[in-house]
Structures are given as C-alpha cells and as structure tokens.
C-alpha cells in the first residue's frame, strides 16, 4: 500500500493559481494596459478608435473567459482528484494562502486557516480573538505532523459531509486534537459535538449570505411579478377596503427566512389546498410557535406551484378583523359585501389572525356571514387561534368548527429552534452590519433558558425576541460578543424573573440558606439538608430537565413544622409568601374533584382550575399540597404527571408548566407509626426508620409505590422533643416581642420562666407545637392590652412581664 503524499505544488488549485497569475496576474495586467495605452495613443492621433475598441473588447472578453474557467474548474472539488496526494483535497482558498511558501507544515495550515474569511464564522462562534488563539497554540503546532494532520482533516471533513478541507475543517481538526486545543475549547465551554455543529453551520451561513445577482432570472420574477394573471379577476374594491394583501411580501419574507420549520404541517396544508372540497384551515397553537409564519410558508409553496403550472394566482389577504368588528355600524354587511366580492372575483385565501374575535362578537350576524362563506369553494379561509381561545370559543360551536381542517402547531423542537435562531442571528448580523457576534454557547444558553423560563410563549418566536433584545444590549454596551449575561438580562426582563448570572451575593445567600432555614425551623435538620441541596442544584442550572425544581413529600405528625418549612422556604427562595400556592387536598377527596385540578370539561364552561391559573400567573412558586393523603387516587394520578414531566395539560388543551415550581406535599400518614416506632426503637437508625414508615404507608395503601417514587425526596418530620419545643417557644416569643416593639414602640422584657409555662400550655403530643403561637399571643398580647388599659405607657417605655403577673392575669380571666 502506497503512503499518500502531501505536495501542494501538485494540486489542481496550485496549477490554477499559477495559470491565473500568468493570464490575469499583476504583470499581465500591466502588459494589457501598456498595449491598450499604445493603441489609444495611435487612435487619438489617427482619430480612428476601431482597432483600440476591438482589442480592448478582446482583452475584456478574454479576462471574462478566464474568470469563468478558473471559477468552474479550479475552485471547489476536483472531479479527478488525485487521491494519492492529500494536499489536493485542500480548498482553493487555503492553497492560495499557502501558495509559494515552500513545504507544507501544520503551522502554515493553521495560519492559512486563520487568514481565511471562512474561519471568522467559527472563531466568532467560539467567542475568542484570532490573535489570542494563535498565541495560545503557537508552540503546540510544531509537534503535529502535516501528513497525519491532513489525513485526520480529510476524515473529519467526510464525516461532516464536506468535500474539501476548508478553513473551518482545519480549525476544527486542530481543536479536536487535544492538549492546548482542548483547553481552548474548555475555555469557550464548547464540546466536540458543538464544534461539529458550528462547522456545519458555517457551510449553511455561506448559503444564506450568498447574495443573489440582481440580474438573475429569479430576481426578475420577484421584482416584476406576474403580469396579466390578475386581469381575469374582477375589481375587488369592497374587499380591498377591509383587507391587506400579502401575496407578494410573503415571497420575500420566505426567502429572507432561509429555512422552513414545521415541514410536515406545511405538507399537510398544501395537500388540503390541492383537493377540490373544503379548503378552510384553522391553525391552533400557543403564542410565538410560528402560526403566521407557517401560513406564509404555505402561501409561498402555493405560489410556487401556481407559477410552475401556469395556474391563475391565489391572492392572500389578511382580514382587518378589529376594524370590521368595531369600525363599522353594520359589520355583517361589510363582511358580506367583501366576501361576496371575493367569491365572485376568483381565487382568494382570506387570513383571519384571531378567529376568536368573531366568536366573541355580540353580533351573531357576523358569524352567520362568515359561516356562509366558509362553505364556498372559491374562497379559502386560514384562521388562527390560540389553544385556549380555540377550546373556549370555537370548539363549542360545532357547526362552525366542522368547517375547518385543524392544523395543530406545536412549539418547534430544540433542533428546529436552534436552526431558526442560527439563521436569524446570521441575518441580524447582515442586516445591522454591526460587529456584534453571537457565540454558539450564548445561542444554546438562550434556547435553554427561553424554554425553561418563558413558558407563556412557544419556540422559536420567544427565543428570537430574546435574541434581538440581547443583541441590542450588547450593541449598546459596545461589546463584540453577545454574552451569557446579555441573554440572562433579556430573559429576566421578558420573563419577569431574575435569571441573571448568579452573583457573589447570591452564591453567598445560597451557601447560607441552610443556616437561614435552621434558625426558623427547629428539630428538622435532615429535611433542611435535602431541601437546600435541591435548591442549590436548581440555581446553578444543574437540574435543568423537564421536572419541577424540587419535589418533596413531608411525612410526620401534626404541629412539627411541615407547613411552616414550606412557608419559610417560599419566603427565602421565591422572595415572599405570595409565591406560596397552598392547596388543601382534603377538598379533593372525591373522584369528581379531579376536574378542580384539570379544569371543566364543558367547552363553554369557565375552564381553568385555581391551581393551573395560579401557576400560570406565578410560574416561580412553591406549591404546597397540604394533607395529600386526603385526596382521591384519581387526583393523585394527575399529580403523577406533574411530578414526572413538569407540566399538566388541562381539559382545554392548555399546558401549564410546573418546571419552575418547588412542590411540597405534606401528610400525616403514618403519624401514629412514627410516634410508636420512636418510643419503642429509639436506637434504630433514621434510614431504617424511614424505610419502615414508607413500607407501612404503602401497605396501608395510603399512597401507591409509584406515587411515592415520583418525589425527589421523602422527608420525615420527627415529633419534637422538649429541647426543640423550648427553642420553638423562644423563637416565636422573640418574633412576637419584636413585632410589638416595631409596631407599638414598647420594649417588652419577658421572664425566662414564662417560656416553661408557654411550652406547658402550647405543646401536646397529639398536636405538636400547633397551639404554641396561639398561647403566646394569648399570654403576651392579651396581658399587654389589659396592662395598657390600666397603666399609662408611651412609646419607648419598657414593660416587664413576669410569670406571677401572667398567672394572676390568667386566673382573673378564668
């Protein structure tokens, strides 16, 4: 087997460069100009320009031939590539940069790739400077053998479906080779797979950026449209008054968009349009999922088909729904005249951007008119509705609903959304002409954060709007790259939640969370540890999957701090108790109560449940499911989906995202078991105890094993011992005394022995510390009220409360 050589001089690209230098190089141009000047001189003297013009024409035509020949035969892949010479796979651009510089080395290859315009895309996506990259890798380049490097580069190019070894392929091969290059990749936070994607996107970006000649046949057609086809259609003044025509503009926009997503939906829509019967379509989907773009893409394909087959063109008109419904005295008559005209004149597609407006209109005649024309074969109606409004307004009217073929548009997949973002970022750079670049890492983060935090809008629309904001911010800050911080800032503004990079203060706060919680929650250290762990993971985006931030089942007797933990946590993590969504599960004890969670089944009913509404309004909340053991198993089954997938699809088809919630379910199940077990087996380890408890609960059929397994952690709340109870009493006492001091301005001094009295009265084995607060309020606040009535006291005075006084007071009240 012969070893392939690596000789750049024996490549076709090199021969092409030599030929070009001979025919159209600097020296040749000087020769041509000298000849022309001599001829011009003679022509001026004789007054006859025939020879001069003829020779000039010949030279120009010759150069024209040379340009075409070089472009077609010496750039791009050579059909008769010499496989024995690896250098023949190098792109012409790379050969041009190495040409005439002696033997091929990896150093020359690296420098040539950096000089190439094509490498700029990769470098900018990585978010580094060419000079700093060159500086970092300089010493490592000499250790790589050029021949084996080219072999790797060729294999890599083939894997990526690229025919020649281009500058991005060379860079990518270097970056994959480990050592200092691996460090460089790690610095940019880019994986090998990401790198491959970047190289493939570079190929795509060239296609998007390739400007079409203004003299190309396609440009002519787009510029002049189709002359004469409209002559067979009638005058449509009544229709034109209430519509906007987009037939032409969609062609431009589709081309500008560069790629089409929702391809299967487009195919099914075009199929519907091609049949002879009903052509009305209803596009149902959430905000920003691309319903209107989908309609435009369908319009583009329809126009293409009509052009290719010499058919009469269909006009796409957007109905000004709001104007019709609120701008005219008799909207039904206006609509009737407009649609009659459309029906008579010929082929039209009427686009209604929000069909629910017609359904909500008090004028039923408008709906009657619309229904009449939905049956017409010469008009197609493309209507748009959100999933919510479709179920609320359209589905209930079955006669109306049956006139449409439904196209359900879902949010784009991650891959589709990334493609759209990539194309949009390339276009934005081209349009704005500014030197602000979006790194691949920023794009991926943008996608991930948008998907996670902007749950009220779908992909790709939501991500594109964040991208545009982030670019604007980076431009304003005169930054070269759109950084993670710009993306986080834009998302924080749009999603109205703070997702800006975890600052030092915040990190400190997270690290101290355990301490903060421990000061408010007494005797439940294990529970606090598990909670804090989950929250740390969430804040650092480690747990960024399709589940809630944390799901916990708190088991334990009454009055030991389960609900209190949830309240404190909501306060600490989400910034206030208003972020606590408390659901008393004893209200969901019957099978029918499941509708209280998933919403009304009646299409005309009010729809959403309290739970889904609250979570939609406050996606960053702590959901407390109190006394979960009292809920019906059917209700628990609904929660299985939420705990597992992080969302709930209600009866109206509306999806509620629970991924930004912490879910805590509390239960007294096994309370007696806990008490008895602890009394009898105080020496046993807590793990054994937890296992015994869970086994007992499953055996009692309080919860099914799959329900318990859905929680991240099952946490046990132990009965409080005397030390815990005293600590709780002191904590509560301190809180109440501080509150009085802040509100009334009195300094309250309480004797130590009062605490024992509070514990005695406020703690019971059955209810734990549940009564504690009431007892403290009774003793302190009531005593204080009586004291103030009987004595004169002003702000700043110190009031001492002794056990004897309290006992006397309580005795007097009995």
């Amino acid at each position, binding site marked *: 087997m012969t070893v392939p050589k690596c000789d750049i001089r024996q490549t076709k690209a090199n021969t092409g460069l030599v030929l070009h230098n001979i025919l159209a190089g600097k020296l040749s141009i000087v020769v041509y100009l000298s000849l022309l000047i001599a001829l011009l001189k003679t022509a001026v003297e004789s007054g006859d320009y025939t020879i001069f013009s003829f020779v000039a024409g010949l030279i120009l035509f*010759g150069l024209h031939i040379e340009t075409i*020949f070089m472009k077609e035969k010496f750039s791009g892949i050579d059909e008769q590539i010499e496989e024995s010479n690896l250098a023949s796979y190098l792109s012409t651009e790379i050969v041009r940069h190495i040409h005439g510089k002696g033997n091929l080395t990896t150093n020359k290859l690296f420098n040539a790739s950096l000089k190439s315009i094509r490498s700029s895309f990769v470098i900018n996506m990585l978010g580094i400077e060419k000079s700093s990259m060159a500086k970092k890798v300089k010493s490592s380049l000499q250790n790589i053998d050029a021949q084996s490097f080219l072999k790797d580069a060729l294999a890599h190019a083939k894997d990526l479906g690229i025919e020649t070894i281009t500058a991005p392929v060379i860079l990518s091969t270097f970056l994959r080779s480990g050592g200092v290059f691996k460090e460089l990749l790690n610095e940019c936070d880019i994986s090998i797979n990401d790198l491959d994607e970047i190289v493939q996107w570079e190929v795509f970006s060239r296609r998007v950026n390739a400007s079409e000649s203004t003299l190309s*046949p396609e440009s*002519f057609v787009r510029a*002049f449209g*189709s002359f004469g086809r409209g*002559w067979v259609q009638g*005058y449509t003044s009544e229709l034109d008054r209430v519509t906007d025509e987009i037939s032409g503009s969609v062609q431009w926009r589709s081309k500008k968009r560069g790629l089409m997503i929702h391809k299967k939906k487009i195919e099914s829509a075009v199929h519907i349009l091609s049949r002879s019967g009903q052509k009305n379509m209803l596009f149902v989907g959430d905000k920003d999922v691309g319903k209107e773009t989908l309609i435009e893409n369908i319009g583009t394909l329809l126009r293409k088909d009509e052009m290719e087959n010499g058919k009469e063109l269909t006009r796409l008109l957007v109905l000004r729904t709001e104007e019709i419904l609120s701008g005219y005295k008799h909207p039904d008559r206006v609509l009737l005249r407009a649609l009659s005209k459309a029906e008579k004149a010929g082929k039209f597609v009427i686009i209604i951007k929000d069909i629910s407006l017609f359904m909500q209109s008090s004028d039923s005649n408008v709906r009657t008119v619309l229904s009449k024309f939905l049956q017409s074969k010469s008009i197609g109606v493309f209507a748009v509705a959100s999933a919510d409004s479709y179920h609320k307004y359209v589905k209930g009217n079955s006669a109306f609903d049956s006139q449409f073929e439904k196209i359900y548009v879902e949010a784009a997949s991650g891959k589709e959304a990334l493609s759209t973002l990539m194309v949009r970022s390339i276009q934005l750079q081209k349009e704005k002409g500014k030197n602000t670049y979006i790194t691949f890492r920023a794009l991926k983060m943008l996608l991930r954060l948008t998907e996670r935090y902007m749950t009220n809008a779908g992909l790709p629309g939501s991500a594109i709007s964040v991208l545009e904001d982030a670019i604007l911010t980076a431009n304003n800050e005169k930054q070269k790259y759109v950084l993670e911080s710009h993306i986080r800032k834009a998302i924080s503004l749009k999603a109205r939640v703070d997702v800006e990079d975890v600052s030092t203060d915040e990190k400190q706060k997270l690290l101290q969370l355990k301490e903060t919680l421990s000061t408010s929650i007494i005797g439940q250290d294990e529970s606090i540890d598990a909670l804090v762990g989950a929250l740390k993971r969430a804040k650092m985006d480690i747990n960024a999957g399709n589940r809630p931030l944390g799901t916990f089942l708190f088991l334990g007797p009454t009055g030991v701090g389960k609900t209190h933990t949830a309240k404190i946590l909501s306060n600490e993590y989400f910034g206030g108790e208003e972020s606590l969504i408390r659901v008393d599960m004893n209200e969901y004890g019957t099978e029918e109560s499941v509708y209280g969670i998933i919403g009304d089944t009646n299409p005309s009913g009010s729809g959403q449940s309290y739970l889904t509404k609250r979570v939609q309004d406050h996606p960053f909340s702590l959901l407390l499911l109190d006394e979960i053991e009292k809920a019906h198993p059917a209700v628990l089954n609904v929660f299985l989906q939420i705990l597992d997938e992080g969302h709930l699809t209600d009866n109206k088809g509306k999806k509620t995202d629970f991924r930004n919630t912490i879910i805590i379910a509390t239960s007294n199940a096994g309370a007696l078991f806990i008490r008895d077990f602890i009394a009898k087996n105080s020496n046993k380890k807590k793990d054994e105890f937890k296992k015994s408890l869970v086994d007992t609960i499953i055996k009692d059929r309080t919860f099914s094993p799959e329900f318990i397994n859905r929680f991240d952690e099952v946490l046990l709340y132990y009965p409080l011992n005397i030390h815990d109870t005293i600590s709780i009493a002191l904590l509560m006492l301190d809180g109440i005394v501080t509150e009085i001091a802040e509100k009334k301005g009195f300094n309250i001094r309480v004797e130590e022995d009062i605490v024992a009295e509070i514990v005695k009265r406020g703690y019971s084995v059955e209810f734990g510390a549940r009564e504690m607060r009431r007892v403290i309020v009774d003793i302190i606040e009531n005593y204080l009220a009586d004291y103030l009535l009987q004595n004169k006291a002003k702000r700043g005075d110190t009031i001492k409360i002794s056990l004897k006084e309290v006992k006397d007071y309580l005795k007097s009240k009995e």
Partner: protein
Amino acid sequence: MIHAILSFPGILLLSFLPWYYGEYPVRIFRQYIAYAKAFLEIISIVFLIKTFLSPWKSIVDEYPKNLTNIGEIAQVFTLNCTTRIIGMIFRTVALSVAIILHAALIVLFTVYLVLWLSYPGILIVLAYLSFS
C-alpha cells in the same frame, strides 16, 4: 511553478477545450432557457393565450331570464362583447411586448454564444495576421 507550467498542455487539451466548446455553450443555452422561463412568468404568455377571450376584469352582465326582452339581451350582449374586446386589446399589447422581449433575449444570447465560440478563432487569425 514548473510542475504547474508543465501541466498546461494537459489542461488545455483535457480540461479547457472540452469545457470551452462543450460544457459552457450548453450552460449558455440553459441560461437562455432560465431567462426565457422568467420572462414567460412575468408576462404570462401561456396564461394570456388561455384567457385571450376572457372578459376584462370579469366585468360581465347576466342575460335576462325573460328571453323576449330583446333590447336587454342586446344590451348585455354588447357589454359582454365590449369587455371581451377590451380584454383582447390589453392581452394583444401584453403579448406583443412579450414577443419583442423574447426576440431581444434570443438576439442577445445568440450574439454572446457566437462571440464565445469564435473568440479563439479571432485570436488565432489576429496572431497570424500580426506575425505575417
């Protein structure tokens, strides 16, 4: 450099000549077809011929149901004929423009093709004349 220069005769014989007299003239012809198609789209000759007798902007009147009303029938007939004639006039103009444009396109591409094919011949003749 030397290697490249040595390969020039091979390039001329195996690459340039087949490309110059084979591939590229075909490309020129294809380009012509693409422009001709584009022109056909812009001024839709096929469509104009198909609808040559159609009424202008679909302006037509309906004949009365009562066929005894000769006057009204005549009036509708006249209007319908007129609208068709107007349509025909406009389409004739459009078709004439289309034919002129296509003729211009044919002339342009023919000149280019002839120039392309004869260019080496002209160079050889010029070289011969200047040496002799």
